[in-house]
Structure formats: structure tokens, C-alpha cells
């Protein structure tokens, strides 16, 4: 278990995990954009700086389409042809964004970075048993030879991911969602990669399975793996993460220790507060409006059009400073809105014109007659 604090001195967001260990992965102003027709660009990831230590889990959270998965693809060198990258992503001494495909294929994927995919059912080969897939990966990645040795390697990998040995001879379609997820995790662990990337590993699973999957991933972290978990499931992030990075429109807008983020001080960026306040156990109030298109980002702060606190200052892009990229961050120490209340009639108190059906603002608990809701 790592120290769940970040280093406040490093204002660029590359705070190290506080373990003293050299970071496993260091992103420095990493950007990915896609070149489109007619000279247009889609800026999927912009200026992301982040460090991940061994034995640490950082959860990268945000709405769908905010650029989270592109970041994972970039780290594995799996971007399409029209992608352009900037900045650096160091895995130890190796720079991933500029690495040659041969280098990535022979030395990185599976060996130094393991991917735990979003839909394991689609990731596994449907026509072969789990055992045969584990053995193939063991043969390719670890050079294990011989029937008995391969069998042992497959069984060991399965055990590490809590995949039951008596299900090894089953085909992917014969597995439940939870077991398919464990099979995919076992495959990611075969090559003993120090860094694990999990891309929405819990989507579509029910609550019990989410918790089990997340606890199993956490065990890998406690065994010394570094885990970057991409998710939109805040409950899963709360359960597993040491730190939380909130992504909005391709940028990290808040980077905080998980217990501070989910606990008493709460998030400081209005977007992050809005996300938490949307949870059914909290305010159950959506953030007004829709996230911007990554191909047509507003100038300045991308969240300003949806933000109740926006002012003229928001015409400039805020830098990530002390873990938050906002011109009007909620002061540290303000209690988060956390009053459970039943939903009520439409509260039409929007002071900003946002194209949405609801204009409730995240903030203090609302009253049914919200004359002054803000």
C-alpha cells in the first residue's frame, strides 16, 4: 500500500507518489491529436502530466469521450495512422510515444505493460479455451517450452488472477462476465509486466462483480504492480485508487489523493464536484449541458460553458496548479454537497443558458422551490 499523498511542491501535476520509489511511468505534457479531413484536428489528450509509482493505483476518471482510452492506446503504441503525439511518456528509461513498433512489440506490450481490456469477451479468442490462450501467451512472452512447463505457467497465471483452475478448459462464451474478466487479467499478468493499464475493466458488470474485480486488481497493486485504471465508475475508483486524476475534454483538471477526493475535503474542481454530486447516493443532479466536442473545443477553460462559477478569467486555459486546473477552485476544506434528498419538480433556476433540460447546479442541497438555487 502506498502513501496516499501527493507532493504539493510539484505544481505541474507530475507529483510523485510519495513512496520514494522511482516512478514507473512518467507522462510529461503528453498530447495526442488526430488529423482529420480538411485540416481539422481532434485534440483527444492535451498536456497530460502524471507519474505513477510501483504499488500505486491512479484512477483516470471522466465522462465517455473525454480522451481517457486514447491515452491508454497511446501508451501501448496502438494509435491509428492519423494520430500525432507530443510530449513524452517514459516507462523507466524508455520513451513510449517515440518508440519503434518493433521495440513495442518485442519488449513492451505484455512484457512491461499489460492491458486489461474493456470487454474481455471481445478480447479473448472465441474459438480457443482459456488454457490454450494462456499457454500461447506464456510461450511467446516468457519463452516457456515443454508441455508440462506451459501447463504450469498457465495454471500459475490463472491462480494469480483468481481464475478457477477447473474452468481453464472452457471457451470464452462458456464464462460469466466476471470469469471472462479474470481470464483477461490472467492474460495480462503472464508476462509479469510491472505496469498494468486497465481500460474500463468494470463496465457492464453488476455491483458485486465490480467490487470483486476491483479488489482483485487492487491485490495486483499491493503485489507491486503500478496500475493506471481508466474508468467512469466513481465507486470503483473510490474502492481501488490511491490517487484520482479527473479528465475533462482531454485535459487533467484535477489530481488528488483518493481519500481527500471522495472524503471530507472533496474535489476542488467544479467539474469533479459535479461528477460526484451526480451519484445517486449524493445529489443525483446532472451537470448541465454536454461535454464539448474534442474537435471543436471552446477557447479557454473547456468546462466554462457548463460551469456555474465561470467568469471572464475562464477565457484563458487554467494551468494545473496544486492539483487543480481551475480559475475558481473550491477552497480546500469546504465540505462537499452530500445531502441525500428525493428528486423533485423541475428546478428552473439556471443563471446560465445551457442547452439542457435541467439547469440545477451542483452545489448546496436544493429546495423544491429553488428561487435561489446555485
Amino acid at each position: 500500500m502506498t502513501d496516499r499523498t501527493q507532493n504539493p511542491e510539484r505544481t505541474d501535476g507530475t507529483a510523485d507518489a510519495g513512496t520514494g520509489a522511482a516512478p514507473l511511468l512518467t507522462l510529461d505534457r503528453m498530447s495526442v491529436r488526430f488529423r482529420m479531413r480538411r485540416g481539422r484536428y481532434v485534440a483527444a489528450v492535451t498536456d497530460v502530466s502524471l507519474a505513477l509509482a510501483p504499488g500505486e493505483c491512479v484512477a483516470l476518471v471522466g465522462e465517455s469521450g473525454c480522451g481517457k482510452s486514447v491515452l491508454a492506446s497511446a501508451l501501448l503504441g496502438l494509435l491509428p495512422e492519423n494520430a500525432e503525439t507530443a510530449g513524452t511518456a517514459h516507462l523507466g528509461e524508455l520513451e513510449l510515444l517515440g518508440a519503434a513498433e518493433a521495440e513495442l512489440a518485442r519488449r513492451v506490450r505484455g512484457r512491461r505493460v499489460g492491458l486489461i481490456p474493456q470487454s474481455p469477451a471481445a478480447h479473448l479468442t472465441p474459438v480457443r479455451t482459456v488454457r490454450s490462450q494462456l499457454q500461447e501467451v506464456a510461450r511467446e512472452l516468457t519463452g516457456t517450452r515443454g508441455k508440462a512447463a506451459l501447463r504450469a505457467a498457465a495454471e500459475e497465471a490463472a491462480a494469480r488472477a483468481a481464475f478457477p483452475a477447473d474452468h481453464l478448459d472452457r471457451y470464452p462464451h462458456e464464462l460469466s462476465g466476471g470469469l471472462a474478466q479474470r481470464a483477461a487479467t490472467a492474460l495480462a499478468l503472464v508476462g509479469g509486466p510491472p505496469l498494468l493499464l486497465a481500460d474500463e475493466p468494470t463496465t457492464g458488470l453488476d455491483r458485486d462483480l465490480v467490487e470483486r474485480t476491483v479488489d482483485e486488481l487492487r491485490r495486483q497493486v499491493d503485489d507491486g504492480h503500478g496500475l493506471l485504471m481508466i474508468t467512469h465508475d466513481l465507486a470503483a475508483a473510490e474502492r481501488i485508487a490511491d490517487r484520482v486524476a479527473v479528465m475533462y475534454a482531454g485535459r487533467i483538471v484535477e489530481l488528488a489523493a483518493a481519500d481527500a477526493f471522495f472524503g471530507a475535503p472533496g474535489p476542488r474542481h467544479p467539474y469533479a464536484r459535479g461528477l460526484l454530486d451526480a451519484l445517486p447516493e449524493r445529489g443525483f443532479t446532472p451537470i448541465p449541458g454536454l461535454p464539448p466536442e474534442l474537435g471543436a473545443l471552446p477557447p479557454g477553460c473547456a468546462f466554462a460553458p457548463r460551469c456555474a462559477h465561470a467568469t471572464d478569467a475562464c477565457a484563458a486555459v487554467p494551468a494545473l496548479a496544486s492539483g487543480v486546473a481551475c480559475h475558481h477552485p473550491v477552497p480546500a476544506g469546504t465540505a462537499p454537497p452530500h445531502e441525500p434528498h428525493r428528486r423533485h419538480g423541475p428546478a428552473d433556476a439556471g443563471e446560465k443558458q445551457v442547452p439542457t433540460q435541467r439547469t440545477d447546479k451542483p452545489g448546496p442541497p436544493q429546495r423544491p422551490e429553488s428561487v435561489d438555487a446555485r
Partner: protein
Amino acid sequence: MPADSPPPLRLRAITAGYDRRVPVVRGVSLTLAPGEATGLLGPSGCGKSTLARVAALLHRPDAGEVLLDGEPVRGWRHRAPREQRTAFGVVFQQPRLAADPRLTLSALIGEPLRATGRRAEAQDRTGELAALVGLTPDLLARRPHEVSDGQLQRACLARALALRPRILVCDEMTAMLDASTTAALVAAVEDYRRASGAALLAVGHDRTLLERWCDRTVAWDELAPEAKPAPSG
């Protein structure tokens, strides 16, 4: 509404599945009261989605009876009379699988109107529905691959509301979505229900969500005490 009016939907001793020898749902009964939001809570693989499909007249049960406003249902899917079929609006878990990739969002939302010979209304109604679910006009000209899951699910909800259903069935409507989009879609459903008095059957596995959303939440094992054990894993 008078207390003795028949419930909008009553399921009586439903047995259903995909192989008569191994029914997924056995002898389950459930009643939706007028204007009531009922949450149906169960783990994945328990049969709750099959029951939701039976309730929405999309899957013919092997045994049991479905009563719509006290009237027994005799046909399922295309064999159901139009006024019974269109009493329901259904939203599924995976918007990608529920949306024709060739249609723009605007065509997708207006599809039920065109399918029932009300093409003339489609344009105005599409705009209204888009506003209700929080879709901006620029998104309506796009096709499913050009929008996010959350945006597509908003369009699928708008489509489900197009014919002003009296009963809404939401089967894991928000399982793929982030917290803010979830709250926005639930708010849109509730806005519609407040205006129309429609009943709701919300199927899901998230107890916190269903208890917050619905007037009452029933767990699957209360409905189906002799249900077969859920598949392992």
C-alpha cells in the same frame, strides 16, 4: 385516478425463457400501479431482462398472463395490436446495439412516428424530444458512430418517448454511462413521467440507483423464490 381502475400492467405467474426445458423466469408475478416507478433489482444473468422483455411485449412467455390495463395480452412483438404495442417505450442497456447505424439521430428519434404513419408530426416532435433529453440540435444530424454512448442513449430514450408511452421499461438504461449522464437520463425520464403520468419499470443491478430513482424497489429473489441459482462467477 380512481383506486379501482385496473393497473396499467400486471404480470401473472410468468414463465419464460429461450428453451422450454430450462426456463429463465419461473412463475414470476409483478404489478405496476398507475404512475408508479418500480425498480427491479437483480444480479446479471438472473432473468430480469427476460421478464422486462415479456413485460414490454417483446418476448412471448411460455406460461402466465400479461394484463395491460386489465386486458389480457394475446400477441407479442408484431402480433400485438398496435395500440398495445405502442403503449410501451423501451430503453435497452447498449445503445449501439439498439440503434440503426444508418440513421441520423433525428431519424432515429422520429422512427416510431414514421412507423405508425405519423410522419407529418415527426419534425416538430423530434425537436421537442431532443430538448427533453438534453441533445443539442447540432447532434441530431449525426449518425451513431459520430456521437458518444451517452449521447446515443439520450437519443434512444427520446425515441422511446416519441409515441408518448403509458409504460416505460428501462432495462439497465444507465449501466454503460457515467454518473452525470445517468443522473441526466433519469431526470429526463422523471420529467416525462411527471408530465404524462406514465408508469415505469426500471430494471437494474445498482441498488443505490434504483432506490433513489423508484417509488419501490423489488429484489429478484423476492419475486422468484424458487429461481434457479445464478450461474457461477
